């Protein structure tokens, strides 16, 4: 289908502002005289604050206030940005006497400047009763040490959690008799895979500014993906009505899910509520790494049953997820480890079982990171399928052709949804062709101590959370016949403001430049769950389509009066105006817009919301070629080729950049992004010096192509793209490393040390 504005690589609306360094982020736009907020953090993984002495700290010149657990409201809340009632337990206080990880805040310091705040922090004397800590997720469940012994721990949803067992959530889902089928298989692979608590490492750390607005309300300007959830969270945490809070976001310096959690908003908000003064909290890089909201560390036990001819008949997956000291996103991320991995093999699967336990530990709490559990599950299941292929002596792409999900199949492991739009088979054959799989799959010894080898993986994700997420849009006609698009979704750099404007332009038959976009502000924007769960293009996009068709009706109604026509069916919507089919008279959009402002009762604007009963998966195939140095264990990525089915790419350039960015994050997760804890439970990789994200020298050539299906429930046939793209690199790279070395690495990241040691 030929489109005028969608499926076009339009420049992002904010591109030149960003590239020319204009002040558009939180720290650039807020007043410079705000109180500087700093947090004193616990050095212990599990401790009770016995005593805090503030007297000398309060004497530091410029200190406005210091707050401790005795000063804050005693209502527990969750900081996960999720639709109410949240699956995440209410297990936090703004400051708790019981601190549960190294980095848990003990005191909030507000001062006129940073120096004073830091000087005061040094002078606070805290006496802790240090408790033994739960530092190993594998022994956390039913440990006698409880991370959350408190009686007021509260789960708003029933998700199988029990704080008296260190359990955030647990559950089992199954279809068919897994044990029986496994017993009947020629071969059963049984392996355990492990992924780490990777850090989103968005370049702009967590930050929030708060002030009292001119109506005496709390006005929050935050780098957040979730303005509406943030307002609700603050309301509960601070004990003030939602009508007294306004949350807005300016441009965001990256999120990747980190900012789907209200990591830092409550602290400056509390300062502003108490002092009435503006307050600004900016996390250092170190704080972002110690007390952020990283990926859930997961251990996945896969049992994969197959026949000697390569038919995959049963998958049994158990995931143990480490939620850390608090439960945000714990019950939901784990679900994706099964829901977004097992269905890839719907083709011949006769039975599956997916069970999980999510545990509390005294480690940094995890949250939402692009891929949201799917990344972990796909590493495990895709690795197991690669192991199966190698064991049976099959080309792993052939085994996938035989077993993969195909268009029209019902996916029992994916809520029974039908793969209504699925080009996974075409992605595979195209990827095989452009990567030249047949030539590169065989291992090649380069004769200089280096080996070249290739690996492959498939992936899926969802598009929004079915039966939950709500996307909304308001479209208004302006006097000159242009449009305003007002959103509650959050463009965090991905370009969704532009993508949604392209949809308005397509619907209203105007130029993208004729659509001005605003997002997001709880006072102004229509309600939107926010930008996460791969929902914005798919869900908010559909809301944009609906709002446009309503606005067209409004415009026709106004035009009908002007053209003295009592049947709007006779009116034609044309680019610059409305034409009466019979009389040929035209009312220009400009005339209509002015009419709307004078002696008129029909609004020249429309708001629409959309929700979905399905979450159509995008699909992807990734292939990698590596060069491995047998002496040092160093792995160089030579080529990563990916073919993605995201339905119609609304903006192919932006879809491509999403894919490239996701692949490079996936390469980091596979090879370098490591987390170790010292004996006290403190992460040792607390800066970019130790936590190595890929530089532009650490990725080889990236090639991205699209093989589109058409998803009828999405706008213009679109599905999602933002998250899926991080999933294939880890299993594909682990596969290539096996090909080069003969050793399967089931523990990420696969560092040169591990490769050299052969384990």
């Amino acid at each position, binding site marked *: 289908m030929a489109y005028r504005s969608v499926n076009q690589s339009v420049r992002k609306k904010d591109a030149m502002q960003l590239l020319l*360094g204009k002040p558009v982020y939180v720290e650039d736009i807020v007043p410079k005289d705000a109180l500087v907020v700093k947090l004193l953090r616990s050095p212990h993984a599990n401790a009770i604050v016995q005593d805090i002495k503030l007297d000398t700290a309060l004497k530091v010149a410029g200190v406005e206030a210091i707050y401790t657990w005795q000063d804050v409201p005693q209502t527990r809340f969750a900081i996960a940005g999720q639709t109410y009632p949240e699956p995440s337990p209410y297990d936090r206080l703004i400051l708790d006497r019981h601190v549960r990880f190294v980095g848990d805040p003990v005191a909030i310091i507000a001062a006129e400047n940073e120096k004073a705040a830091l000087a005061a922090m040094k002078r606070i004397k805290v006496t802790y009763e240090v408790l033994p800590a739960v530092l190993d997720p594998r022994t956390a469940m039913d440990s006698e040490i409880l991370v959350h012994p408190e009686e007021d721990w509260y789960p708003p949803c029933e998700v199988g959690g029990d704080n008296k067992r260190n359990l955030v959530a647990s559950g089992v889902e199954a279809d068919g008799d897994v044990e029986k089928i496994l017993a009947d298989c020629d071969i059963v692979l049984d392996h355990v895979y492990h992924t780490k608590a990777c850090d989103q490492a*968005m*370049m702009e750390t967590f930050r929030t500014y708060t002030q009292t607005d001119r109506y005496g309300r709390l006005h929050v300007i935050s780098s957040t993906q979730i303005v509406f959830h943030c307002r609700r969270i603050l309301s509960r945490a601070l004990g003030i009505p939602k009508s007294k809070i306004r949350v807005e976001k300016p441009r965001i310096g990256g999120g990747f899910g980190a900012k789907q959690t209200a990591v830092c908003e409550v602290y400056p908000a509390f300062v502003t509520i108490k002092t009435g003064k503006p307050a600004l909290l900016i996390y250092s890089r*170190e704080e972002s790494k110690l007390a952020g909201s990283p990926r859930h560390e997961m251990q996945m036990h896969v049992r994969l049953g197959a026949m000697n001819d390569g038919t995959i008949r049963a998958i049994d997956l158990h995931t143990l997820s480490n939620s850390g000291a608090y439960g945000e996103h714990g019950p939901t991320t784990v679900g994706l480890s099964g829901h977004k991995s097992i269905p890839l093999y719907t083709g011949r699967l006769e039975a599956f079982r997916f069970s999980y336990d999510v545990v509390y530990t005294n480690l940094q709490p995890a949250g939402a990171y692009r891929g949201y559990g799917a990344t972990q599950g796909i590493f495990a299941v895709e690795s197991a399928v690669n192991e199966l292929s190698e064991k049976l002596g099959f080309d792993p792409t052939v085994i996938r052709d035989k077993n993969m999900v195909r268009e029209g199949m019902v996916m029992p492991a994916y809520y029974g949804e039908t793969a209504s739009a699925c080009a996974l088979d075409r992605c595979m054959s195209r990827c095989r062709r452009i990567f030249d799989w047949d030539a590169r799959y065989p291992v090649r010894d380069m004769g200089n101590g280096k080996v070249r080898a290739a690996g492959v993986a498939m992936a899926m994700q969802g598009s929004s959370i079915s039966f939950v997420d709500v996307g909304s849009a308001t479209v208004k006609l302006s006097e000159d016949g242009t449009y305003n698009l007002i959103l509650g979704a959050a463009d965090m750099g991905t370009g969704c403001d532009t993508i949604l404007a392209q949809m308005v332009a397509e619907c209203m038959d105007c130029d993208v430049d004729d659509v001005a976009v605003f997002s997001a502000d709880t006072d102004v924007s229509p309600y939107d769950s926010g930008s996460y769960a791969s929902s914005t293009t798919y869900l908010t996009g559909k809301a944009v389509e609906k709002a446009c068709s309503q606005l067209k009706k409004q415009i026709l109604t106004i035009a009908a009066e002007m053209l003295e026509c009592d049947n709007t069916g006779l009116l034609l919507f044309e680019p610059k105006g409305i034409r009466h089919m019979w009389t040929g008279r035209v009312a220009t959009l400009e005339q209509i817009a002015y009419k709307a402002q004078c002696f008129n009762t029909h609004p020249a604007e429309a708001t629409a919301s959309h929700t979905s009963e399905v979450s159509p998966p995008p699909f992807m195939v990734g292939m990698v070629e590596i060069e491995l140095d047998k002496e040092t264990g160093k792995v160089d990525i030579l080529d990563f080729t990916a073919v993605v089915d995201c339905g119609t790419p609304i903006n192919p350039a932006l879809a*491509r950049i999403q894919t490239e*960015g996701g692949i490079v994050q996936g390469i980091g997760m596979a090879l370098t992004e490591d987390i170790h804890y010292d004996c006290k439970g403190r992460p040792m990789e607390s800066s970019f010096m130790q936590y190595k994200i890929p530089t*532009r020298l650490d990725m080889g050539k990236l090639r991205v192509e699209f093989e589109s299906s058409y998803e009828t429930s999405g706008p213009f046939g679109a599905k999602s793209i933002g998250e899926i793209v991080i999933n294939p690199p880890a299993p594909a790279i682990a596969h290539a490393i096996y090909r080069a070395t003969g050793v399967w690495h089931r523990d990420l990241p696969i560092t040169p040390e591990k490769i050299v040691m052969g384990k």
Partner: protein
Amino acid sequence: MEIKLILNGKAVTDHIEADTLLLDFVRAHGCYSVKRGCETSNCGLCTVLMDGKPVLSCSTLAARADGHEITTLEGLQEEAADFVGFIADQGAEQCGFCNPGFVMNTIALLRENPDPTDDEIRQFLAGNLCRCSGYEGQLRGIRNYLDQRGGRHGI
């Protein structure tokens, strides 16, 4: 202490604390393009030019700028506008938070080596982290810019 410097072509005299970082100094003087992404000199977001050479303003004392010429992206809007449109055409600006440092370092590169190869570009910009774009789009943008002005190293 008092320092005198040229900031984006204008003479500036100011009293500073001895431990003031150049990054905080330029931001305090309205150069908000300069960003902080780390505390360990690893990200390159804070890149400015000192006497035309790129430096990390997060690990340079403002006192060291005394008597020197400091340029931030605010002072190089036209030179930047010349090529950043090519990056915009790729959509590679993404969140934008790394852009000013990356653009400043690219300007430094192109002044030093007007016709770099792709590998020279990667090497020169290796210290500029970007978590969003995956780097390829930035490279394509620079390459397209060089090609249209007749660079010899295009592929």
